[in-house]
């Protein structure tokens, strides 16, 4: 095991996958969240229920989707429903245990920005926008955010509040893991193997508090890495 090596993206994905319990119902965004959810389903959580906002419920993709609307998701789903139905009957009604979000910025309270960097009317960077995030963040039992950590992405206060941090239970980054304290402020609770706290502090745009119970992420197992790498080779493939 000690001879294994992995990239920051790989350990971030595997740490995210571990957040999912078997038989969780999970609302999955495309990209790293989808990769993590599919790793979980192939390892410790075979009964994980994947819901994609395109309307596929219980998708069991044999390859890794490139987009949220890949045909593979429809072909392997228990049910395909309309987009209004997925948001109203499934997400809003509180049937989803875990929401999985990415972000451009996150702040110490767990609020997320995927809208603009800079003033709304004259932004320096126009980001894609809200998508499903505001209601995923408000309706799922718990919310996991996956984001690369840097002083640019971890800010004291997001420039635009696209979705709220109230239900954020865990933030998984390429450096470690953060969880909110009772007041809702994100604390560092785990570092990945080989990452020191000073590195994480330097990559955080606020005075980061470290949990008294700081732990280290267990290294990826051979199985986890094999599953992840094999899966990524299939991205966007049509079966």
């Amino acid at each position: 095991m000690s001879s294994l090596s992995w990239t920051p993206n790989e350990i971030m994905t595997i740490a995210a996958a571990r957040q999912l319990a078997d038989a969780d119902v999970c609302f999955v965004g495309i990209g790293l969240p989808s990769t993590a959810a599919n790793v979980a389903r192939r390892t410790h959580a075979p009964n994980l229920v994947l819901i994609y906002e395109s309307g596929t419920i219980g998708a069991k993709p044999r390859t890794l989707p490139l987009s949220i609307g890949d045909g593979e998701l429809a072909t392997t789903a228990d049910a395909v429903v309309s987009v209004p139905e997925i948001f109203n009957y499934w997400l809003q009604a509180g049937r989803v245990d875990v929401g999985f979000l990415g972000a451009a910025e996150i702040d110490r309270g767990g609020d997320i920005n995927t809208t603009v960097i800079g003033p709304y009317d004259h932004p320096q960077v126009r980001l894609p926008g809200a998508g499903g995030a505001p209601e995923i963040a408000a309706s799922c039992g718990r919310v996991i955010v996956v984001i690369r950590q840097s002083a640019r992405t971890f800010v004291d206060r997001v420039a635009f509040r696209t979705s709220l941090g109230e239900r954020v239970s865990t933030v998984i980054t390429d450096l470690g893991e953060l969880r909110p304290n009772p007041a809702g402020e994100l604390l560092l609770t785990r570092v990945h193997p080989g990452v020191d706290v000073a590195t994480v502090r330097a990559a955080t745009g606020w005075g980061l508090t470290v949990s008294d119970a700081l732990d280290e992420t267990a290294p990826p197992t051979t199985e986890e890495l094999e599953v992840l790498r094999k899966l990524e080779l299939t991205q966007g493939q049509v079966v």
Partner: protein
Amino acid sequence: MITSLAEAIKANVKDGDTVALEGFTHLIPFAAGHEIIRQGRRDLTLVRMTPDVLYDQLIGMGVARKLIFSWGGNPGVGSLHRFRDAVEHDWPQPLELEEHSHAGMANRYVAGASGLPFAVLRGYSGTDLPAHTKNVARIACPFTGEMLTAVAALQPDVTIIHAQRADRQGNVQLWGITGVQREAVLAAERAVVTVEEIVDRLEPLPGAVVLPAWVLSAVVEVPGGAHPSYAHGYSTRDNAFYQAWDSISRDRSQFLSWMQDQVLGVADSQLEGSSA
């Protein structure tokens, strides 16, 4: 009812119209959008939950005055450079934005399709989104007093979608991921549908949505009319093109040259579906 692409766009898309070309990764009506560009429409308010490469092209060609949307990106790839250039640098012209969450947009179409002026949801709460649109409001439940969110109905002048099949009467069938297309069509004043093929009879299929001819304005046979998106059962998504678009669209002149070659310079006789 069943007509050519040029005729369908000419008759149904006017300068200044509010136009929704809907689709959720699957069944994006690229050919119809290209015809809008060729016909030189201007001042459109474009509507879509997930504006992607097609909307990048429409915006970059100066077709749009305003965009109503919830997520604008190149799925799985990254930014839309023409969209960003319009918002960040007003090129080729300023682009007014009205943005929502997916749940909000979906419910705005539902209200439109239902003939109601608004829909109710739990959404937007605590976010900065409502500050930038007048189409989101708070509303009290008359039974419990609970505060919820109202969104105004979306009723495009015209909705355009791509589907797999139509029969000779113009009844349309689509399947796979059907997204918000039914609602977008039913919310609109007029509706244009391009299809992979016209068949004698629509065989019932699992998961298929059928839109009767009498709620549609025009149906056009355009095989491959969703490319580089796909039509479930007919084609697969051209992921390589979506990836290539990132570099094609990064530079203004390269973008314009590509549009000239691939869209504007296509003679009528070469058009997708022109023989239909």
